[in-house]
């Protein structure tokens, strides 16, 4: 259906509008947005700002009043809605696994709708369950209620990926899970997305989640107006206005620390000798975790460990990293 099914395709919204009869203000007011192929864009905004409505217009669960949607080269509004939806992955907060179907049958819903052979569906189900970290042999014939919330949401993601859609829509998929499970799922999902490079629109009201997952973030206000659409680091270092700044809240710099890894910030090349006795962090950890270790141990240095290699990371390194990044960002920002 969509060209270039390997990885994602571009999504374009043009003047997309939704008016409900009897309401003066449109729920979604002339939104235009480009989502580059293979990127994960997070719509973040308060409840009722129209972010979910905007997303649901893309798979036409809600029909737009006016405007244009293109996925790849296809004009979405000219397609048959059911065909469209079979080629757009969809994950919702409530997960929506069918309780009367086994996990394998749940994952196989879309392939079955597309008329795949039984053998092909079976192979695909096994592959997908493995992909989301569930043992296929163990889980295939279980029913959803026999799974924990986190496992169910993994199946939800596997089900959305079943027919290998280039585009995925995710509506607060991790919103209903406990914080620990949520973090697990987010990390797993990031790993998966690095591999698959789907084009994803991800709706959340959790700004932390937006920073963590998004390649880009669209901060939305009433009527789905875009307050700022940019990379997370730039939104944090150069919020477009008070509304966006309000979203970031205080401690924006601390949040930015979570976007830079120890590896990226490291300047001093000290070998193992200089790092003896220092608290250790993984080289892939973020500066926020490094700072956390410093504060916890009352030191101004930590050892960045990557296999057998150890490097020293100082408090000054962290400050430098965050400031040099600001300089990179600011001239083009705004």
């Amino acid at each position: 259906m969509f060209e270039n099914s390997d990885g994602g395709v571009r999504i374009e919204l043009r003047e997309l509008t939704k008016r409900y009869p009897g309401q003066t203000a449109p729920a979604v007011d002339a939104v235009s947005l480009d989502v580059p192929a293979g990127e994960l864009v997070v719509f973040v905004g308060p409840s009722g700002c129209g972010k979910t409505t905007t997303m649901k217009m893309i798979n036409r669960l809600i029909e737009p009043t006016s405007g244009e949607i293109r996925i790849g080269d296809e004009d979405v509004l000219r397609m048959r809605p059911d065909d469209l939806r079979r080629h757009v992955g969809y994950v919702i907060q409530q997960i929506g696994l069918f309780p009367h179907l086994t996990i394998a049958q749940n994952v196989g819903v879309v392939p079955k709708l597309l008329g795949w052979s039984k053998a092909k569906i079976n192979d695909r189900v096994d592959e997908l369950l493995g992909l989301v970290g569930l043992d296929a042999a163990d889980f295939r014939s279980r029913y959803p209620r026999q799974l924990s919330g986190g496992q169910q949401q993994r199946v939800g993601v596997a089900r959305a990926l079943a027919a290998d859609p280039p585009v995925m829509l995710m509506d607060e998929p991790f919103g209903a899970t406990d914080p620990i499970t949520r973090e697990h799922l987010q990390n797993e999902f990031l790993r998966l997305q690095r591999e698959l490079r789907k084009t994803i629109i991800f709706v959340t009201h959790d700004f932390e989640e937006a920073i963590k997952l998004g390649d880009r973030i669209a901060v939305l206000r009433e009527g789905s107006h875009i307050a700022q659409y940019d990379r997370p680091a730039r939104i944090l270092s150069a919020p477009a206005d008070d509304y966006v700044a309000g979203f970031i809240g205080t401690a924006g710099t601390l949040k930015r620390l979570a976007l830079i890894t120890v590896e990226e910030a490291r300047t001093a090349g000290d070998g193992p000798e200089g790092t003896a006795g220092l608290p250790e962090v993984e080289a892939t950890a973020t500066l926020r975790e490094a700072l956390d270790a410093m504060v916890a141990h009352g030191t101004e240095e930590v050892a960045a460990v990557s296999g057998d290699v150890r490097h020293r990371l100082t408090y000054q390194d962290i400050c430098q990293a965050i400031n040099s990044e600001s300089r990179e960002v600011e001239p083009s920002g705004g």
Partner: protein
Amino acid sequence: MVADTLPVTGGVGDTGAPRRGRARVLFRHLGTPIAIAAALGVLYLWVHGLKLDSIERRTLNYTYMHDRVIEHFKLTLIASVIIVVIAIPLGVVVSRPRARWVSPVILGLSNLGQAIPSIGVLVLLTIKFGVGFKIAMIGLVAYGVLPVLRNTMVGIQQVDPALVEAARGMGMTRLQVLLSVELRLAVPVILAGLRTALVLTVGVATLATFVNAGGLGDMIVNGIKLSRHPVLITGGVLTCCIAFLVDWLGSLAEDVLRPRGLS
């Protein structure tokens, strides 16, 4: 990966019913037929031990009772089929989002069907259309439609809207969502309504005798009119046994047809 795994009791394919629960289910399924057999046995022994006069003998014989029981079954089964054919599609239609405004009207009408005394309905219909099997059918159907209709509506409406949204979002057509999600998940509720309707119908079918449509009502009414208690009691006990049998079949159907995976 390990933090959110849940220990699952039992092996693959185990739907989680504990052993004690299964034993209880088995007992329930065996209990009713045993009770019915016992009741019929006691009835037989009792009637056998009585000295019957000629009036009683005309009724309490194999041919007569066999014919009445068959008539009763026929009334009940045909009425049930008509009830299913009317009430389930109507319930589906009324549960569609676009048709939800008619649901109070339909519910009101079917409430009426059940609230007005069935014997009154039968008398009115007889005055207007005469007597016979068809008239009895109308009365039975009017009475039995409500539970099935209401349970079909409720059964479909209680399906989690998130499931319907997920199904639509994956590209199922409206018909596919109805057939493979909504109706499938409504099955236990619809069957419960059907079971109620069947049992009601067995009882109400005794009134068919007043419109000359036969059934076990003949025995009961004869027993009362002629003051022949053995006839009355036999007719009553047979009706009860049919009601229990039908209820038992309903419970079997519920257990067999209930989708696996539901708690």
